[in-house]
């Protein structure tokens, strides 16, 4: 179709806004990544001396390695617990006609919707009251509460899309409840649980505020980063930020790809 001049102008204008938005959002990321590879000082940027030196230094930094370990342990355990809870809650709410259905949903979604500072603080006060000392375990509890909403939502959506006659058919053919879950329900939920787990990992991986309150002496990557920045701005920080970013982006892309075809047969 032939376009008038005004329409061309509008196209150009919209294109500029889009480009500008991308520039503002992603330029700092690009700059940050560049400075993790290329050294710079008062004399300018030394393009020719690009190297992975700062990344190697990170690997030698024991406190950073420990932080990475803690982060991984915390997110894997928190996501695993949240996944199991999400499946149980979703089945209870959707099929068993949960008594406090509304309340359950509210409880599940609240930690995700509340300001993290409130969630963190209230958990801190709670643990303090009942005399649990802070550490990995308390961070895991905090993260589980946070990511449960993500997993619950995805599992519930999948469960609702699944015809209940499948469960009836399974029982009708002589399967026990456990067999029905194993052979019929779980294969149907699995894609949603995996997608939810990746998304939850991404959330848990760079969660900072709740963690600050619950960490005690333990350090996760975001906390380590925060600590490093107070000492001084070194390219090491650029490197660590780039790693965090890359991991987050990869998980976001996986989630985006998996959520899109979720309507059809993803298996």
């Amino acid at each position, binding site marked *: 179709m032939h376009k008038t001049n005004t329409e061309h102008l509008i196209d150009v204008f919209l294109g500029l806004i889009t480009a500008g938005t991308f520039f503002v959002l992603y330029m700092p990321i690009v700059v940050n990544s560049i400075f993790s590879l290329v050294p710079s000082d008062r004399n300018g940027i030394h393009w020719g001396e690009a190297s992975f030196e700062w990344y190697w230094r990170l690997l030698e930094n024991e406190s950073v390695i420990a932080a990475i370990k803690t982060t991984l342990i915390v997110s894997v355990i928190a996501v695993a617990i949240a996944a199991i809870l999400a499946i149980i809650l979703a089945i209870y709410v959707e099929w068993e006609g949960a008594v406090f259905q509304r309340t359950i949903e509210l409880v599940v979604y609240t930690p995700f919707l509340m300001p993290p500072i409130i969630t963190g603080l209230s958990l801190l006060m709670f643990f303090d009251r009942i005399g649990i000392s802070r550490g990995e375990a308390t961070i895991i509890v905090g993260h589980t509460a946070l990511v449960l909403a993500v997993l619950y939502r995805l599992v519930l959506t999948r469960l609702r899309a699944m*015809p209940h006659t499948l469960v009836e*058919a399974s029982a*009708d053919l*002589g399967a*026990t409840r456990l067999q029905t879950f194993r*052979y019929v329900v779980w*294969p149907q939920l699995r894609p949603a649980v995996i997608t939810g787990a990746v998304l939850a990992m991404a959330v848990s991986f760079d969660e900072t505020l709740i963690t600050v309150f619950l960490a005690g002496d333990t350090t996760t990557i975001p906390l380590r980063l925060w600590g490093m920045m107070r000492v001084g701005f070194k390219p090491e920080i650029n490197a660590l930020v780039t790693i965090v970013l890359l991991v987050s982006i990869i998980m976001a892309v996986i989630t985006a790809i998996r959520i899109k075809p979720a309507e059809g047969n993803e298996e």
Partner: protein
Amino acid sequence: MTLYLDGVSKNYGDVEVLRPISLEVSNGELLTVLGPSGSGKTTILRLIGGFIAPTCGRILLDGKDLSTTHISKRPFNTVFQDYALFPHMTVEQNVGYGLMVKGCPKEKMKQVVNEALDVVGLSDFPGRYPAELSGGQKQRVALARTIVCEPQIVLLDEPLSALDAELRRQMQFFLKSLQRKIGTTFLFVTHDQQEAITISDRLVVINHGGVEQVGTPKEIYYSPKTKFVAGFFGDNNLLDGQLTASGSIETPLGTIPSLQGSNLKTSKVIVAMRPELFRIGKREGAFNIDCQVQNMDFAGDMNFLRLSPKLDSDRTLLVKLSSDPSVPNLDVNGDATISIKLEDIAVLDNPR
């Protein structure tokens, strides 16, 4: 095997979905539960299958009460309206599911599954997934999946409603011949009168949660016992009538001489006359009605003739005539006399 529903009813809160019914299902028959949507027919099936528990009454299999028997332990299997095939399993896995969960050895399972696929004519697709099958094929998989479990009764919940007309006719024929071949009792639920009459050995007509009539397709079709049944099949011509002391029946279209073999309980009656049982022309010993022709529509295998009787010209009678080309066209607005043999007239009680 005899299944007996003894005063079984179902309420949801204050809503009575099924009034107490008693019904016997005998060995090897194809029994259809027929009724309009919301009449409670699927409820009967779900009660027998064990998906819901009856509010009152007992379900007896060979005299043994099944009320506390879990779905998975009842010797019945269901073909669901949406087929309920497991989408992540192949045809073979779907059909073998009932055996797999009972721990059947692999070798035996493979053999039984192959036999079942053979019976339903699907031996070519054991590796396909349900999404790759047509509606009719899914239907066959669902059937094969139930028969490998060797149930005493196969429960079919409107299994053909998702199929198009042509496929539906094929599947009706297939279902009936399959049932004859394996000799298992089929309990079939449908809202389609034509389908019910075509495939059943016996019919149960349900309306508003209660049984209207039980009988063979011919009994139900030609000798309806209630107004609902009389009006449910075909385009029956229904008249209100009054039984006289002499046994004849006064109707707005004239008096019908006394009918043999009628055992009516009320003096108010309903007269039902099938449109295809009329003939054109006066006949001796038949019920003759003088009419004016409203129109005559050619519908391929039938001619639909609409007439208004001289005695009650606001009424329209429908007559179906064979579309034999030698049948002459009747003039619109012309006079015609139609007749029906007395033994072809059904008279039933009208308690209201």
